């Protein structure tokens, strides 16, 4: 028997077909079909004989207590819109991530078999010229002397070169400069800031441009350069030259 025929039989057994359709279906049934229809009809009849469960014993008072115990609460506005905000935020984050991945595609993966060239042997395009004392005569100890005569500033190390000791150059202030700076600072602190006070700091004569003179005071005297051994830099790292233009320290490190 076909599935569709069984469906028709079930519908007929449960009274969902019209009388004409049921009669036409019954007239064309074979023995198997009749047995199937009888089986469904018995099932349906048994459904009609199911006992009534009796009256419901739940009273309105019981329901009221249950409602009160359940703690019926109206939803606060927070509970209504907070999930929406959360969803919106999640969507924004996802959108950002997707846009980021589209605009910045992954670069080619790192090929570990090919050594990475940390530095090349070609010299730097142009040595960096550091000139921290433009108004003074050239100091006897130049940066070239620190780095060595045959190494231009900015040249990169390669990995197989020995470690280099990084030296730190400290330019100490002379006592004269210290006194001048102290006098200028006191003149500022006492609130007067008169030319007289500043003039006293510079030996009695008032400078035409006091503040400039105070800032340029270290340049007026010859700096004392102290070479101090500093700690070693990173092994094999490319040489980087950093010159601090601060008034106190000039550091060159690798």
């Amino acid at each position, binding site marked *: 028997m076909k599935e569709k025929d*069984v*469906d028709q039989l*079930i*519908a*007929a*057994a*449960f*009274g969902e077909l019209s009388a004409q359709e*049921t009669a036409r279906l*019954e007239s064309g049934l074979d023995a198997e079909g*009749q047995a199937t*229809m*009888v*089986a*469904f*009809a*018995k*099932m*349906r*009849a*048994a*459904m*009609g*004989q*199911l*006992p*009534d*469960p009796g*009256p*419901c*014993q*739940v009273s*309105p008072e*019981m*329901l*009221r207590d*249950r*409602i009160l115990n*359940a703690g*019926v609460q109206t939803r606060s506005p927070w509970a209504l819109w907070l999930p929406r905000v959360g969803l919106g935020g999640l969507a924004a984050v996802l959108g950002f991530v997707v846009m980021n991945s589209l605009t910045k595609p992954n670069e080619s993966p790192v090929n570990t078999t090919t050594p990475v060239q940390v530095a090349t042997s070609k010299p730097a395009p142009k040595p960096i010229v550091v000139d921290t004392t433009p108004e003074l005569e050239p100091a006897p100890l130049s940066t070239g002397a620190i780095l060595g005569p045959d190494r231009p500033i900015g040249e990169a190390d390669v990995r197989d070169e020995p470690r280099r000791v990084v030296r730190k150059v400290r330019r100490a202030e002379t006592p004269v400069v210290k006194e001048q700076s102290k006098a200028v600072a006191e003149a500022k602190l006492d609130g007067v800031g008169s030319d007289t006070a500043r003039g006293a700091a510079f030996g009695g004569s008032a400078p035409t441009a006091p503040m400039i003179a105070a800032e340029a005071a270290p340049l007026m005297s010859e700096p004392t350069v102290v070479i101090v051994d500093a700690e070693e830099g990173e092994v094999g790292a490319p040489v980087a030259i950093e010159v601090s233009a601060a008034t106190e320290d000039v550091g060159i490190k690798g």
Partner: protein
Amino acid sequence: MELGLTMPGTTFGASVDRDADQELVRRAKAGDYSAFEQLFVRHRQLVYRFAYQMAPRQDDAEDIVQEVFVRAYQNLSRYRDEAKFTTWLLRIATNLATDKARMTQRRSNLEQKEAKGALEWMTVGNTEDANDNLEGEYQVQALRKALAALPVHHRSVIVLRDLEGREYSEIAEMLGCSIGGAKLRVLRARRALKERMIPLMEGFVN
């Protein structure tokens, strides 16, 4: 061949005045609790019959009834007038009964597993009660056993359509599917029920 068939729903079907329901719902939404109590009194038996067929223990069925009306009260503002109030109630009842049946089945399986089958006669999986023995009607007993053994999604549509006599449009609304989908579900459930009843009926014949 005379089968003596009648349209479903004549046994349990209750004619409910829809307009009266809507008026009571409107008052209940406005804060009139007595209107909600009237709704409860009008429809508790309908919900109880359905719950009893889904969870054939009286205490479970009554628990479902209370929970259905508690949820209905809590979510009354969400009820729209497009559906009948009874349809909405039965939808809540279907969901609750389905959840409860699954929990019961899971618990029963665990208990049987722990006791290695020794507790089969006393667990909630056994739906026979004292009334069954007194009824003496094998078909009805077989039907109840077969119903209890049905998966809950089959059982719910059988109860809604064949025991409660709900229209397909209502069932579709409760289940959130089309009318054709509801018809298909009912058809499959009837087939499954028959498959479970046949061995029981053969035992009776032999």
